[in-house]
């Protein structure tokens, strides 16, 4: 980054915060906006935006971290496949440390299971191609940004005629979660900072129903501090003016209709299905299951995996945290029993989790609470 760019971005952030304060001064009540993307969570904390915002404007973190919203049951299924089916599990790094009912994939690997971290879904296909003696299961997690790559992996495995490759899909769709949050009435949300990289795939127009049906402003935002600050300023202005609208502040990468090639690949391989979310329960058409034509790539069918209702860890309030019903310090495990070193809930495990962000960026305060510092 050159000096001019640093100055420009500081100047832009300063101007956005001025606009945000001016608009906040016109509000007759406190407002809460929600971001639904782990990268937004981390970036906002990193820039210190929360403490720069006026008292009556709050930015909540919603169910935007794929690891955090993955149900305990889905994690247990992966561990079960590694332990009992003796399959090779290929997973993105984020999933390794998330605890299921009986430990994490990382612990499972330490106990001798074949669990490998991959960078791309195609790495998992390659592992299967190189060793036919192993059944390879790809842990397919993520929102619409990540789903096309899982779909391509399935198509590639089919093209190669691989009989030892399957996926365990926990893919989720963002819109049903946003609607469920609003319909629940548990949390008052006054506008959304929409996830930029999900929008790259699905397109800006997907968020239009939130404006039309719920009369809430939506701004699609990039991931730099100045971009987030500008989006928050605009959201506050739209609320103060009483003119909800959808605006795209990440137009360099996001178009109205998104990446249609990626959408077609998703559509070809997956079909919307009811899915269980941590904190939100079962949501209609909120997940993606393989279409019948690709059923032979479904690890749940190949290994007859049972989907059981699993109770979440006692005391852990990750479900409340990712739906904006509680902040991390309201959880009695936060920064006491649950820390990044010894995480209990997925929001503390994930590098994009809300609890980890709170812990990292208020670290001295919480280190004191945990007794690490006096």
């Amino acid at each position, binding site marked *: *980054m050159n000096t001019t*760019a640093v100055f420009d*971005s500081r100047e832009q952030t300063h101007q956005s915060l001025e606009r945000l304060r001016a608009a906040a001064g016109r509000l007759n009540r406190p407002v809460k906006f929600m971001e639904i*993307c*782990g*990268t937004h969570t*981390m*970036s906002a*904390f*990193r820039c210190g935006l929360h403490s720069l915002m006026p008292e009556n404007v709050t930015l909540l973190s919603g169910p*935007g*971290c*794929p*690891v955090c919203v993955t149900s305990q049951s889905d994690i247990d299924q992966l561990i079960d496949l590694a332990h009992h089916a003796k399959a090779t599990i290929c997973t*993105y*790094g*984020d999933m390794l440390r998330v605890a299921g009912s009986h430990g994490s994939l990382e612990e499972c690997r330490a106990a001798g299971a074949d669990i490998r971290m991959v*960078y*791309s*879904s*195609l*790495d998992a296909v390659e592992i299967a191609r190189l060793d036919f003696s192993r059944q390879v299961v790809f842990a397919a*997690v*993520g*929102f619409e*940004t*990540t789903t*096309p*790559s899982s779909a*391509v992996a399935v198509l590639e495995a089919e093209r190669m005629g691989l009989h030892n490759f399957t996926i365990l899909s926990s893919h989720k769709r963002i819109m049903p979660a946003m609607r469920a949050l609003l319909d629940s009435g548990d949390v008052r949300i006054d506008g959304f900072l929409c*996830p930029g*990289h*999900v929008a*790259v*795939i699905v397109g800006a127009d997907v968020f239009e129903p939130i404006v039309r049906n719920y009369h809430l402003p939506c701004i699609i935002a*990039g*991931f*730099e*501090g100045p971009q987030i600050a500008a989006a928050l300023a605009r959201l506050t202005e739209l609320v103060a003016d009483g003119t909800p609208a959808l605006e795209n502040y990440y137009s*360099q*990468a996001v178009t109205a209709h998104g*990446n249609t*090639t*990626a959408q077609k*690949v998703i559509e070809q391989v997956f079909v919307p299905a009811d899915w269980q979310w941590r904190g939100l329960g079962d949501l209609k058409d909120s997940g993606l299951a393989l279409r019948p034509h690709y059923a032979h790539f479904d690890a749940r069918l190949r290994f007859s995996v049972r989907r059981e209702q699993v109770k979440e860890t006692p005391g852990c309030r990750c479900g409340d945290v990712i739906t904006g019903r509680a902040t991390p310090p309201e959880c009695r495990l936060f920064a006491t029993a649950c820390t990044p070193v010894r995480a209990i809930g997925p929001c503390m495990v*994930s*590098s*994009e989790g809300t609890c980890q962000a709170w812990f*990292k960026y208020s670290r001295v305060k919480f280190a004191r609470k945990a007794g690490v510092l006096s």
Partner: protein
Amino acid sequence: MCLAIPARLVSCRGNHATADLHGNRVEISTVLVPQTKVGDWVLLHAGFAIQKLDEREAAETWAVVKDLRDLGGGS
């Protein structure tokens, strides 16, 4: 997890390409962004190009990714 970073394509072979990721060469898939060519900037997510970018946007995004990495955040 949905973090995507800019990379520049240095060679293309069908649906595969070699990309320059701030000095590192990585093999990526361009199947989701057809009609890309050598020299193009793309947004890269988990080994896949998911969008074409203009060069200025790519440089700006790199600045924030570098900040995130320096501070140990993001994934």
